[in-house]
């Protein structure tokens, strides 16, 4: 496949690195300096504007397969996509950083079709949405939803006294519609069996229906906070912080946003209904103390700077905030944040890049979620039409993978070995990273 990437920033680089293994990639960026970074990769680099038809023609968009526009400017990305489709590119994917062009509204769709954009990706929004899911699941360190919310996946870290560590899995009497799909112990993912016994500091992945997941929460933490109303402090009112505050504004949560820039603070305060906006520096200890940040149930630090984020998060931890969620800019820092005691560290670009790369590879499988820095993924497999129905236990699922749920029409169920797998079923499969290629081609290559 021939792919043109417009924009050589953080996202462009990550994408190119992943895609250049299997595909021919040409990178376009107006800044020639950026090209140095791509010298180590086997790609072509063209210095020039992504909105210039000549430059795009030189990059070979005539009859190429895909153009990905991921510069920092939404308008540039859209124009690049429009030009590319007009010049003969088969598909175009556009990254945006604002709400204007996103969404499913008819206006947004009209914009998409007008500019010939197949798909719009808004990494900051994806990150904010993920944070909302985690905040709404007390105690969890990761949370995902599938099949329009009919199936949930939560990741927990087990602490001392967790009822789950009391007996082997088979003897735990978990709810019928919930399944422990994986355990991460000593940084390695494994699929548990009935005789697996969970221990303190294990990270467990549980999949199930919302009702079953609600029933399982108190089994994870002996002292699980049953309060539904939480207080959330968001440090940094940028794209992510703003969207996060907007999403939480309508719930019964008490939301506070600390923003350093007064102008930006005024914009936030203008569009948020209930949330309190505070003008100040999130790393100012005095401010954090006087605003009683230590009493927050959740502290979310989403400043656009890893060092300051880490500092604000650690201050929050010292003051006594119960759960710390932090945004990480550079993927390389993820491990570090985890080690110093941040409960949840998330990277916006990482997840967006991974899901896009997976989709480009194609197959029957559709990547739904990337878990734990890419060590595991949730993949959706559609059972082909000609498939003869058979019991799940007779299906030879590849090693280090497990079917967590079956979605059949409007119904979603957490299967047992005796449940039937039928044509057109959608299987939600939890897969360790090293096994993904086997699962992808499980029902044969496309």
């Amino acid at each position, binding site marked *: 496949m021939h792919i043109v990437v417009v924009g050589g920033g953080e996202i462009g680089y990550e994408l190119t690195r992943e895609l250049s293994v299997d595909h021919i990639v040409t990178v376009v960026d107006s800044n020639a300096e950026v090209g140095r970074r791509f010298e180590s990769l086997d790609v072509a680099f063209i210095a020039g504007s992504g909105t210039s038809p000549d430059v795009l023609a030189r990059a070979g968009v005539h009859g190429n397969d895909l153009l990905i526009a991921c510069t920092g400017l939404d308008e540039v990305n859209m124009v690049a996509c429009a030009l590319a489709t007009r010049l003969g590119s088969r598909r175009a994917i556009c990254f945006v950083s604002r709400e204007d062009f996103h969404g499913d509204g008819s206006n947004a769709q009209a914009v998409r079709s007008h500019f010939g954009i197949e798909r719009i990706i808004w990494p900051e929004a994806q990150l904010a949405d993920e944070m909302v899911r985690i905040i709404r699941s007390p105690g969890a360190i990761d949370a995902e939803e599938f099949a329009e919310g009919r199936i949930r996946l939560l990741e927990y870290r087990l602490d001392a006294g967790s009822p789950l560590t009391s007996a082997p899995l088979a003897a735990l009497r978990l709810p019928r519609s919930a399944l422990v799909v994986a355990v991460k112990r000593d940084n390695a993912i494994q699929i548990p069996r009935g005789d697996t016994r969970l221990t303190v500091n294990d990270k467990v992945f549980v999949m199930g229906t919302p009702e079953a997941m609600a029933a399982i929460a108190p089994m994870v933490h002996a002292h699980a906070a049953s309060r539904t109303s939480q207080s959330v402090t968001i440090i940094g009112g940028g794209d992510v912080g703003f969207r996060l505050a907007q999403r939480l504004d309508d719930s019964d949560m008490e939301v506070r946003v600390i*923003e350093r820039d*007064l102008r930006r*603070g*005024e914009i*936030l*305060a*203008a569009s948020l*209904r209930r949330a*309190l*906006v*505070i*003008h*100040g520096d999130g790393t100012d200890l005095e*401010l954090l103390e*006087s*605003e009683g940040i230590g009493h927050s149930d959740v502290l979310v630090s989403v400043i656009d700077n890893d060092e300051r984020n880490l500092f604000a998060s650690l201050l929050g931890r010292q003051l006594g905030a119960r759960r710390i969620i932090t945004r990480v800019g550079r993927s390389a820092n993820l491990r570090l944040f985890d080690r110093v005691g941040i409960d949840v560290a998330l990277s916006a670009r990482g997840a967006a890049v991974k899901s896009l790369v997976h989709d480009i590879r194609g197959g029957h499988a559709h990547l739904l979620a990337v878990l734990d820095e890419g060590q595991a993924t949730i993949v959706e497999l559609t059972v082909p039409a000609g498939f003869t129905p058979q019991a799940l236990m007779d299906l030879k699922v590849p090693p280090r993978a497990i079917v967590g749920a079956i979605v059949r029409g409007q119904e979603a169920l957490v299967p047992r070995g005796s449940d039937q797998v039928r044509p057109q079923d959608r299987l939600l499969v939890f897969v360790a990273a090293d096994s993904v290629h086997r699962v992808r081609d499980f029902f044969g290559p496309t």
Partner: protein
Amino acid sequence: MRISVVLHTAGIFLRYFALTFALPVVVSLLYHEWRDAQAFAVSGVLAGAVGQLMMRARSAAAEDLTRVEGLAIVSGTWLLLAVAAALPFLASGLGVIDALFESMSGLTTTGATVIRDFSQHGHGIFFWRALTQWFGGMGVIALFVAILPRFGIAGRQLFFAEAPGPTDQPLTPRIRKTARALWLVYAGLTSAEIAALLATGMPVFDSVCHALATLAAGGFSPHPLSIGGYANPAAEWVITFFMFAAGANFALHYRTLRGETRAFLRDEEFRAYLAIVLVATVLLTACLLPSAPRTVEAVRTAAFQVLSILTTTGFASVDFQLWNDQAKMVLLTLMFIGGCAGSASGGPKVVRQVLIARYTLLELRRTLHPRGVLPVKLGGRVVPDEVMRAVLVFFLFYLLVFAVCTLVVSAFGADMMTAITASIACLGNIGPGFNAVGPMASFADLHPVSRITLTLAMWIGRLEVVTVLALVRPEVWRLVRRG
């Protein structure tokens, strides 16, 4: 400031206003009141001639107006029209001060009266009282801007200087179209009320006069006992409903008629207005229940009086001067609120009170969060600082004028309750107060100086205080001298 421009423009308004004198001439002729017809005709001709003369100050209308000129034109026109409208009252036997009081009370839709003996005056005079209110309710200048083609850009400025309440978005990009739309809604609602009142069995003449005075939130009634004199419960409900409509923003009526079905409920000021009406009605009903023969009657009387005072109409279905102090206190509180912005009502307006309340509550929150970013919001949008400041300044000036007025009225011999309620009733364009100026009494018993002061208060109150007070600034008069 160019005096010639002010004279010329005010002259145009006066000349067209003179045409409206034709209507009471017709009414007087219908009732064979020849002397009154003559008086109206002469007054009209006189006003028209003076207007024509004033227009001579300049050969053509000014293309543009400075801000000061706009304020001077609006303030001056209202004063001038009040003088013109007072002529028929003079002819009908009132003294100069009383005639001016009555006509200012009409144009500003106050509804306070100095007429003691209603039987001395003909139909034409009562129709004229209602008609001046009707023209004043939506704004005389808005009317002329709507129908006269000659005010382009200047019309926009005049329209906003006269409009009641902190103005929001015009309904249409063109100010003439906006003014015309509002006047159409106004006229439509008036016709609807005339029809409804006729259906309740009220005589034709009284129905017309009451409808004109209701939609204008005026309150003049041809009956000396006001609405109470008809003993017609159905009419009371009809008027209650139309007072409620008159106290709401006419822009919302317009948008609802255009098919925006949820316009009313989506408007924060209207919701607050509705809440005030409901709470006040419940409170007043509770005050009246012990002495009311039947619950239905207590509710009807309470709703009528709450709306009459809140919308600054000033009708009375009973003599509320006879009520206990608790009930009177409810009404006195309502006098300081007023109807919605963009309605025909006077007073400080619901939206200003909502903004002031929010501002105060936010200051409380700010003491807890000194670094909080806490903008005042209305309808989900941030209220700019300058608007908020204007609202606060308005209310402070309003209270100041109220205090000065009360001092004057009480200094010239009125008791405290009379002085307070007469002042707020005139400044807020409400009409009746308590004690010596109660709903069945007359302002004629007050000292002449008090009556002059209250006449000015009505004028200042109708033009929202700042329009008039700004003209008192010395720099305006320096501008005048320079020409």
